[in-house]
């Protein structure tokens, strides 16, 4: 975090967007339907960016992101609904529990490579869902209802910016470079003295942490969470956003998460046909652009802001 012109400009842009939407909302321009989708865009951006850290930057194919989201959603909902804790505490606790879950699942399974890791994490997601289905304290299959609606635009935007900021800065640090090195060539990275297990688990735990935040925001916006919300289809959805945006591109994930959420909302009236169109789009886009929208490139402000010496450390790699 340097106070370069570019960073200040980004900050100003971020604040501007916040107040713009805040004002639109206060003026009643945004309808209820649009608000729901605005919230989903934010939540999906958090999920996609955090999964990109694991899949895109560290190169570990994980299919259990919905599981971490479920952990965050349930833990935070228990804290606010059953134990009467304030919202920030609930978000933090949900995120930390998800991170711990990430470490617990990551430590043993990250020894596995590629597809084995994928199926192990997918299995983990299903275990979480199965557990939620069988615990009566959190409502079993019927889920939890009556969660207070505490998520608003301010919380959502704050958490979204926090997620992006932390992950981008992490990626530009030594640790982030180590993660990218593992993606590029695990054996070479290990030979260079990088503790691969440590960094893989770190990336996994960080991804899980932010997925937990997304889960907490989700639970406190829709006041209802059910195990059926967190199936592996949810994990697939997030993975689709990441791959669609480009593995290893944070801005790509943000654009893809927003685009896919909005496309989904726009096709809402078509019922089942919506999913068919979605599936066809997915196949067509992947066949013609397998590297995703952005590839590993980032959308940066460099083009418009004159460089000042070394101060132009852009996001990503």
């Amino acid at each position, binding site marked *: 975090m340097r106070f370069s012109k570019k960073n200040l400009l980004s900050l100003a842009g971020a604040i501007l967007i916040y107040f713009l939407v805040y004002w639109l909302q206060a003026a009643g321009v945004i309808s209820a339907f649009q608000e729901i989708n605005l919230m989903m865009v934010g939540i999906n951006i958090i999920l996609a960016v955090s999964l990109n850290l694991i899949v895109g930057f560290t190169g570990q194919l994980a299919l259990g992101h919905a599981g971490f989201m479920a952990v965050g959603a349930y833990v935070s909902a228990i804290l606010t609904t059953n134990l009467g804790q304030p919202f920030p505490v609930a978000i933090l606790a949900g995120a930390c529990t998800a991170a711990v879950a990430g470490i617990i699942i990551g430590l043993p*399974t990250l*020894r596995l490579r*590629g*597809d084995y890791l994928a*199926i192990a994490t997918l299995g983990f997601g299903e275990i979480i*869902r199965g557990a939620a289905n069988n615990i009566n304290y959190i409502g079993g299959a019927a889920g939890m209802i009556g969660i207070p609606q505490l998520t608003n635009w301010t919380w959502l935007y704050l958490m979204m910016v926090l997620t992006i900021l932390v992950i981008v800065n992490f990626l530009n640090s030594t640790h982030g470079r180590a993660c990218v090195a593992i993606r590029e060539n695990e054996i070479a990275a290990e030979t260079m003295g990088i503790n691969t297990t440590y960094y893989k688990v770190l990336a996994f735990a960080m991804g899980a942490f932010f997925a937990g935040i997304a889960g907490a925001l989700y639970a406190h916006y829709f006041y209802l969470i059910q195990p059926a919300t967190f199936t592996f289809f949810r994990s697939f959805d997030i993975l689709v956003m990441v791959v669609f945006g480009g593995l290893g591109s944070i801005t790509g994930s943000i654009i893809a998460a927003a685009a896919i959420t909005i496309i989904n909302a726009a096709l809402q009236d078509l019922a089942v046909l919506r999913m*068919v169109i979605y599936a066809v789009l997915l196949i067509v886009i992947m*066949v013609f652009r397998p*590297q995703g929208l952005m590839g590993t490139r980032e959308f940066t402000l460099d083009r418009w802001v004159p460089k000042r010496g070394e101060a132009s450390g852009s996001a990503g790699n």
Partner: protein
Amino acid sequence: MAVFLQQIINGLSLGSIYALIALGYTMVYGIIQLINFAHGDILMVGAYIAFFGVVYLKLNIWLAFIISMIGSAILGVLIERVAYKPLRNAGRLAPLITAIGVSLFLENGGLMVLGTEIRSYPAGLITSAQLPLAIFGIKLTATTLQLLILAITIAMMIILQYIVHYTWAGKAMRAVSYDPDAARLMGINVDNTISVTFALGSAFAAVAGILLGLYYNTIHPLMGIMPGLKAFVAAVIGGIGLIPGAMVGGFALGIFETMVSGYWSSKLRDPIVFLLLILILLVKPSGLLGKNNTEKV
């Protein structure tokens, strides 16, 4: 003891269906290292082809089996040509995403065309009678349907073993899965061999789909999701890419699953299956029959 033996009988028939699906997964994985997530949905299509054949065209069930196998094989090859072939050199993740896309397409296309209605095969299609069975004086129940499922599965496995080990196509498949580049240099048409693999796997899935429809007496457009996933787990447990591994994994998973439902709770069945998967992966990542490969630089 009676419960134990009874669950083994139930597990064998369920496990043989898993094994049939797992064979398709493992063959495709063995040849192009792709988790074909659409495999479970091909099973559903196969079940429906047979359903419409039997109900509207008044076909004999055995003829319906054959037509369904052919139809599914064509579908499998088509999917491979359209969705996977263009991405053969695009890394591992891109085809995985299109596989998810194909899976979503078949599921939701199925829901759109066929509706959410749950159908079942006409009664009396296969006469299922109770078999009086007694082992060491313990009375057990088995139906002729269960016996039939087991028999069909074993027959299919023998056919597959024959194809893979004693025919040209099988030899080509083994060569391509060992080293596609070397196989191409030896004059093997790699693309056609991959298509043959998809056709075979999909035909097996069709049989599994019909058997599943007969076993649970229901078919619906989302019927393939869970069995597909379970069969993939079975393939991994047995050692993915290995044909005997898929068989062993399928039977092991089927028996384990019925044991959990029989002794414990059917609600806990799915999470425990996945827990078993993770435990096996931790102890022996290459699966029960797999060899541990150390990666060389």
